């Protein structure tokens, strides 16, 4: 399928202030991330046509869905949008399969049941076709909602806090399923969340929202290493996110060797295959800086690099040091005292020390990391 | 049972309906039945207080004839141009003091028993028809006034919407007694429910009961109007305690 990008520009002063502009291409996962009340859901609702901002321009490929300039507004039921609601919003009086069939009105009547069953099989609910929502668990409801959203054969898939209502263990499994599913779906996917875990695990792009305003927007790797986003620092802590490949497995030691644009890392992992692509996140608090490479430590990972920036924020006790390791920007959060003791400044070569257990591995090709909760 | 499923009567199949004062409840039903037997046509009778029925007629109720308990109400309708003519007096009604079985009220035509019981504080409730809408209530008021009982008894009165309801109150033991229509207590069903004394006609304005044919009266009802003045109807009226008009 050809790329059918979703481009969105929203602007209004109230009642919910909005000022965002973004484009999401097929295959991309844009995470709209921000604290509650920042207008995340309003953006999704605007895309779906459930909300009409005072100034808006929303296009899906060549189709105009909303354009307040020309007065164009396509009602929600004529937009090819798949929306998974936060509380799933299943139709309580209909069985799982009829919930999905409701969204298949564009298909000939005779095909609907088969198609709905296929979709429910896809989300592993083939055995619960005739259950009503009240007879399904939280995770199962979420899957029905997902199948129903996909049934529409949408040009864009919207997920509103899709994991907020399920418990932690189910959440991991669903995250992985959505991650593998979206690779087979050639459409833009927008995910609204206030949980950074979702962003790290699923997003290719991030839109950071604060009171309806986009404070940052771009590919995830670039955004994660921006220490100027103070609230992000408060909320989840800074960290570096970059892609790597599994080079080797040391099954006996319970470790895997990862190569990236800047060196190799040893990380604990039980279930990754060799050559698998993974996403690595290293929290800035877990990185120790040293002026010389130490010896005699239990440490596996010592990376050499050069300081490219030092971020001092009066609002924080700590200082964020940005270190170029090969082509990866690594972030380290240290005290002001350490900065002056070590004489850290831009251009200075330093060593970054990282404990293996501090490295978070996120599957980025549908395979599972060690802590997926199964 | 089949009648259950038919639609409410339309305009065309409506049986002729006449309105009658509540004191006629038994007498007029008997006369209407007699009329039906003799002439083979039926008239429906709706009973109520003369004042209430007058109001309904003025508001457009589809009655074809009105038999009142006095002359004033039908005269109002005549003045409003709703009747064929001034109509005719068909009967003179009588009032009785009634006490249900077991009541402490001793009945007499001079109301002495009522007066004594009232002084002794023994009158809890005393039933008359509402003087505003029922001529028999008006007659009851006049009677009580004449004996100087109106003011002391006022707070004890229960007012029936019509003389039939007042009789209901008086005969079921809900009141120590009442001033009600003679025609109602003549009914065998009520006669054994208590004792009564006929009030002299001089105690209140005469209950000259007038009937009028309304403008929309059909020939059947016009026949009934004449039938009311005939010997058969008169006989039934007299049997039921009315006097023939002079």
């Amino acid at each position: 399928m050809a790329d059918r990008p979703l481009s969105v520009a929203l602007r209004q002063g109230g009642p919910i202030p909005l000022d965002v502009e973004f484009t999401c291409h097929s295959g991309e996962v844009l995470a709209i991330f921000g604290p509650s009340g920042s207008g995340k859901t309003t953006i999704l609702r605007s895309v779906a046509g459930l909300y009409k901002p005072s100034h808006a321009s929303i296009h899906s490929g060549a189709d105009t869905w909303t354009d307040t300039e020309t007065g164009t507004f396509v009602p929600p039921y004529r937009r090819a949008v798949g929306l998974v609601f936060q509380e799933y919003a299943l139709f309580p009086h209909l069985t799982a399969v009829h919930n999905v069939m409701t969204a298949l009105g564009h298909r000939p009547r005779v095909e609907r049941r088969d198609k709905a069953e296929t979709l429910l099989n896809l989300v592993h609910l083939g055995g619960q076709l005739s259950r009503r929502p009240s007879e399904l668990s939280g995770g199962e409801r979420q899957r029905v909602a997902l199948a129903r959203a996909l049934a529409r054969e949408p040009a864009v898939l919207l997920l509103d806090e899709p994991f907020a209502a399920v418990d932690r263990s189910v959440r991991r499994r669903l995250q992985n399923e959505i991650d593998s599913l979206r690779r087979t779906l050639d459409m833009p996917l927008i995910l609204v969340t206030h949980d950074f875990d979702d962003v790290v695990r699923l997003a290719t792009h991030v839109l950071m929202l604060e009171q309806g305003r986009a404070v940052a927007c771009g590919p995830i790797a670039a955004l994660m290493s921006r220490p100027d986003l103070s609230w992000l620092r408060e909320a989840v802590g800074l960290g570096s996110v970059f892609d790597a490949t599994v080079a080797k497995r040391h099954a006996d030691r319970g470790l895997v060797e990862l190569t990236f644009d800047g060196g190799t890392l040893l990380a604990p992992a039980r279930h990754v295959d060799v050559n698998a692509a993974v996403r690595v996140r290293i929290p800035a608090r877990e990185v120790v800086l040293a002026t010389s490479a130490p010896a005699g430590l239990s440490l596996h990972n010592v990376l050499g690099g050069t300081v490219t920036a030092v971020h001092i924020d009066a609002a924080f006790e700590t200082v964020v040091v940005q270190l170029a390791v090969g082509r990866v920007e690594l972030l380290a959060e240290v005290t002001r005292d350490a900065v002056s003791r070590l004489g850290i400044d831009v251009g200075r070569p330093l060593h970054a020390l990282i404990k293996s257990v501090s490295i978070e591995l996120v599957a980025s090709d549908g395979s599972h990391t060690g802590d997926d909760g199964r | 049972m089949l009648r259950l499923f038919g639609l409410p009567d339309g305009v065309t199949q409506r049986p002729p309906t006449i309105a009658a004062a509540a004191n006629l409840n038994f007498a007029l039903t008997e006369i209407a039945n007699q009329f039906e037997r003799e002439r083979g046509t039926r008239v429906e009778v709706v009973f109520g207080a003369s004042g209430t029925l007058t109001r309904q007629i003025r508001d457009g109720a589809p009655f074809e004839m009105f038999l009142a308990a006095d002359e004033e109400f039908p005269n109002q309708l005549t003045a409003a141009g709703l009747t064929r003519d001034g109509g005719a007096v068909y009967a003179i009604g009588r009032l009785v003091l009634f006490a249900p079985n077991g009541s402490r009220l001793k009945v007499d035509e001079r109301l002495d028993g009522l007066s004594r019981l009232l002084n002794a504080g023994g009158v809890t409730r005393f039933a008359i028809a509402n003087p505003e809408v029922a001529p028999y209530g008006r007659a009851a008021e006049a009677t009580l006034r004449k004996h100087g009982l109106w003011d002391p008894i006022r707070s004890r009165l229960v007012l029936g919407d019509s003389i039939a309801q007042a009789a209901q109150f008086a005969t079921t033991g809900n009141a120590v007694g009442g001033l009600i229509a003679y025609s109602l207590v003549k009914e065998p069903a009520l006669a054994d429910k208590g004792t009564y004394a006929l009030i002299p006609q001089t105690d209140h304005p005469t209950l000259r009961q007038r009937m009028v044919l309304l403008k929309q009266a059909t020939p059947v009802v016009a026949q009934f109007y004449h039938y009311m003045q005939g010997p058969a109807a008169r006989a039934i009226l007299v049997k039921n305690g009315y006097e023939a008009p002079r």
Partner: protein
Amino acid sequence: MDWAALRISLWLGAGTIAILLPLGVWFGRLLAVRDFRGKLLVEALVTVPLVLPPTVLGFYLLLTFGARSPIGQAFQSLVGHPLPFSFQGLLLASAIANIPFVVQPIQRGFEAIPSDVRDAAACCGLTPWQQFRRIELPLAWPGVLTAAILTFAHTLGEFGVVLMVGGNLPGQTRTLSVAIYDRMQAFDDRSAGIMAATLLAISVATLMTTTALSRRMSPSRG
């Protein structure tokens, strides 16, 4: 037993439902879904017949549609008889008196539907009519059913307005409740007793049916 009165009572109940239910569904949904200026006033007006003595309603109806009013005269010249003291007049009075019994349960029924579910229906590609027909109406059904039953039961029991506007005309406006009154006045306690028992039985049966049906149709139950 006055079969004609029972027949009129049943027809009045059914007729009131037939008139009010479609209107009630439309209006109840409007009140549940929309916000508009003056909504509070509209809601109060809808509820007024609930707290108003029936005689007030009767008074205004007679005043508006009586033979002495211009509207009443216009109606009479059109149909041939005045609106009061006719079954149609009774139906109109009954419809007005029952507005709150219809609108309120239906409004609650539609209000109970989460707005997300309504939005989800739109996002599934259902047109507004399909959303209403396939999602909202089935979910609001217990409210609609309650409205119908309440109206029916209330119509059977209505007395004040019926007597005032209807005038106790046999075969036309004499409902069972008025017939009981009428029989009482005629000292016919036997007939009054039979009819009272009939009315009691119908009312109990009606309410039992509602409870049973609403239990069976409640969507929250599996």
